[in-house]
């Protein structure tokens, strides 16, 4: 039985972007206010899951042609590379650095290498949760 869920799909089209924006916000805000890579990742996943519920796994795969296992691997790589980069500057493993820059459009902004590490966490969380949900969802 194929039901016609126009309302759900239409709402999803709007809501997904709101959730994604919120996820990105939470991710970037993590260093100063509650949030961070982990929650941001989970929220991103929930946006994709909402898409899967409204449409179906195949469609979502078509619009988001991402291999989540590779995404996980890239995330882990970024995390370990950020941690290891400190060795080049002859400081102990996992030493972070930060400074303030004048960026166009943003103005005076603090850039922190911990953000890169958090990005790794973000990618891993999205990758793993999506791997799990997709694998189980496709299972017969």
């Amino acid at each position, binding site marked *: 039985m194929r039901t016609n869920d126009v309302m759900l799909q239409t709402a999803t089209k709007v809501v997904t972007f709101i959730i994604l924006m919120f996820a990105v916000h*939470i991710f970037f805000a*993590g*260093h*100063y*206010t*509650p*949030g*961070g*890579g*982990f*929650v941001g990742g*989970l*929220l991103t996943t*929930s946006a994709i899951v909402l898409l899967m519920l409204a449409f179906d796994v195949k469609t979502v795969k078509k619009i988001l042609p991402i291999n*989540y*296992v590779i995404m*996980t*691997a890239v*995330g*882990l790589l970024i*995390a*370990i590379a950020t*941690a290891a980069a400190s060795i080049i500057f002859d400081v102990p493993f*996992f030493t*972070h650095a*930060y400074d303030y820059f004048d960026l166009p459009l943003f103005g005076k902004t*603090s850039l*922190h290498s*911990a953000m890169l*590490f*958090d990005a*790794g*966490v973000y990618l*891993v*969380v999205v*990758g*793993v*949760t999506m*791997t*799990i949900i997709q*694998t*189980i969802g496709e*299972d017969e």
Partner: protein
Amino acid sequence: MSFVFLIFLPILAALFVPLLFKKMRQIHTGWFVLIVPVILFVYYAMLVPTTSEGGQLVSSFQWIPSLDIAIVAYIDGLSLLFSLLITGIGALVVLYSIFYLDKNREQLHNFYVYLMMFMTAMLGVVQSDNLISLYFFWELTSISSFLLIGYWYTRDRSRFGALKSMMITVFGGLMMLGGFVLLGIMGNTYSIRELIAQAPEMASHSFFTWALILILLGAFTKSAQFPFYIWLPDAMEAPTPVSAYLHSATMVKAGLYLVARFTPIFAVSGTWMWLVAGVGLFTMFWGSFFALKQKDLKAILAFSTVSQLGLIMSLLGASAAGYHIGGAADTVFKYAAFAAIFHLINHATFKGSLFMVAGIVDHETGTRDIRKLGGLMGLMPITFTIAMIGSFSMAGLPPFNGFLSKEMFLTAMLSLTEFNLFSMDVWGVLFPVIAWIGSVFTFIYSFFFVFHTFAGKHKPDLLPKKAHEAPIGMLVSPAFLALLVLVIFFIPNQVGDWLIKPAVVAIQPFLYTAPADVNIHVSAWHGLQPEFWMTLGIFLVGGLLFWKLHKWQRAYDRFPDNFTLNRLYDNLMYLSDGGANRFSALYMTGFIRSYLVYMFSFLIIIVLGALVLNDAFSINLNNLAPVGFYEIVILLALIGSTVTILASKSRLTAIIALGAVGYSIALFFVIFRAPDLALTQLVIETISVALFLLAFYHLPQLSLKEERMKFKLGNAIIALGVGVTVTLVALSSHSQKALPSISQFYKETVYSEAGGGNIVNVILVDYRGFDTLFEIAVLGIAGIGIITMIKLRLSKKEGQHENQ
């Protein structure tokens, strides 16, 4: 010359044995092997002049210097005597085995490799001055003996015998290691010579008796003393050259060597004397008594070996008495060690030849059953002559060397009655009596062995093969040994000067300092002393009993089979095997529930026990925060949903209630001002509830019976116990904060050092980013695990196919 490396010559030669066996098929491998013991024998024989003047040779090789472990070859009279026995009889046995083992049918490469390994091990045992290397070689003799007994490994009896000897000798070996370690602790050195030097101080140490008993256990198991002799008769499944070499002349004497070597240390103790002399003498009697029960030629010889080893052991025990008597060098106790070594040599000669005779009889007639044999005298005259010489020497008849050592044995045993320490004056009279009875039985079984095999009626129809004389090559070794038996009788004092007296100095250093001090002259005629009458009595009573043997030998069959030591051993093995099995089956139920019960019970017992024993429980209500209204409400919700999980009838309810628990915890996080945790908890709880629902949806339809969880009292008690335990621990630890928290540091430095505002996140990615790194690795692994479980599983059909 560093002769310590000569110990390893046989094992190095063994490396080439398989090569020679494969490449030189036309020549019997034994001929190549023969070279090794001959070279060694000649080398050791050249050292005789040195030791007979009291000289000692030391050669060492550092093995683990930091632990004081070295391989030290120390040659004095005692070790040289044993080395000569090992290499000399080794050479004869190899020669004999060349004719005994067929080069086409037998796996000679195995045989000679094991044999050479054994030779190295034995040489190592007798020459080692370092306790640890002595133990190393000692276990190597056990292992090579195990391999040699199981040489015909397709036979059940061989494997059984090999395992039995392994179990018993390794048990003794491990006990001995314990004794050695205690000695090492007491003396602070592993060197035997240094231990002997400080023997007087060690006697009062509290470990002394322990070390003594443990080392004696090692010696008794190896030398087949009562009640550990039971492996020796079963070891007779080995090829006869092995029995002749290991189980009569060399390995079983390793225990005697050990006792002799440690006599200077332990002689001061009455326990040592009683144990060694008492157990030895009892073994002598027991072995000789049961030798007559045996039907198999080699079994008779095995029991005879047990008995003779007991005899030597008791003499070594008596030699310790010399320590306690002033002017012992003038009394009869000076004889004991001399008699022990003398009989040890004699036994090696006659028992070696007798085993080879038994092998010849087996080889030429096809059976070793004494009931089928008889009348071989005319068919195998040379073998008979050798057997007669060996047996008469064993029985103690003149003019054979056994007569001389048996006389000295009786002298030593008689003298024990005069010894008035350690309540010997009360019980000492038993010693000559048991010795005499044992000697009578020795006399009978010696005659039984030779006459029931070679005299009487020939029964050709009972024999699998047509009996005939053995080839000359097989007869050389036993004939040579038989010749020695005779020669030693006529020149006992030369043998004494060359070999025995230097050895006696090693055993009784408290009596003599140089071999020349040993003032003993062996003579065949003592005059009309008590031992002469005893010998005469042995001959008369023994002769009479042997004459009427057929009348009373059947009495042996009346002995119950159920109460033997063999049966005890079998039951012990069965019990330890089956019992251990049953014991582990008792608690290894295979149900995860049982294992959880064990784990939680032990958790409760250990934690609560520690809490009570250390009196660690305390409640301090001083720095508690006030309880707010919302906290109580959420707590009630939490308790309510927890109870719902336990009491719910349907699984769906339980899952929903679990979700409620998760969300209430998220609310707690909100109240306790942990926004990051609250966020994460909310999302994670949602995902896990969804996964639960997924699992719930896929339950198989068949067993889909909705029912309430059954109440089990045991589970309830354990659950309650764990809850109480954890609560008590939490209360106590909260009340006894030893150190202030480090969170103040984070608060102060979060902006200045780390450039952030969210402490939680900064801790996660900066202060303690290491943890996060590995947590995301854990996540990644979980994801990969789920992929492999779902995507890569084999279909059920394929799995079945594989199993078929």
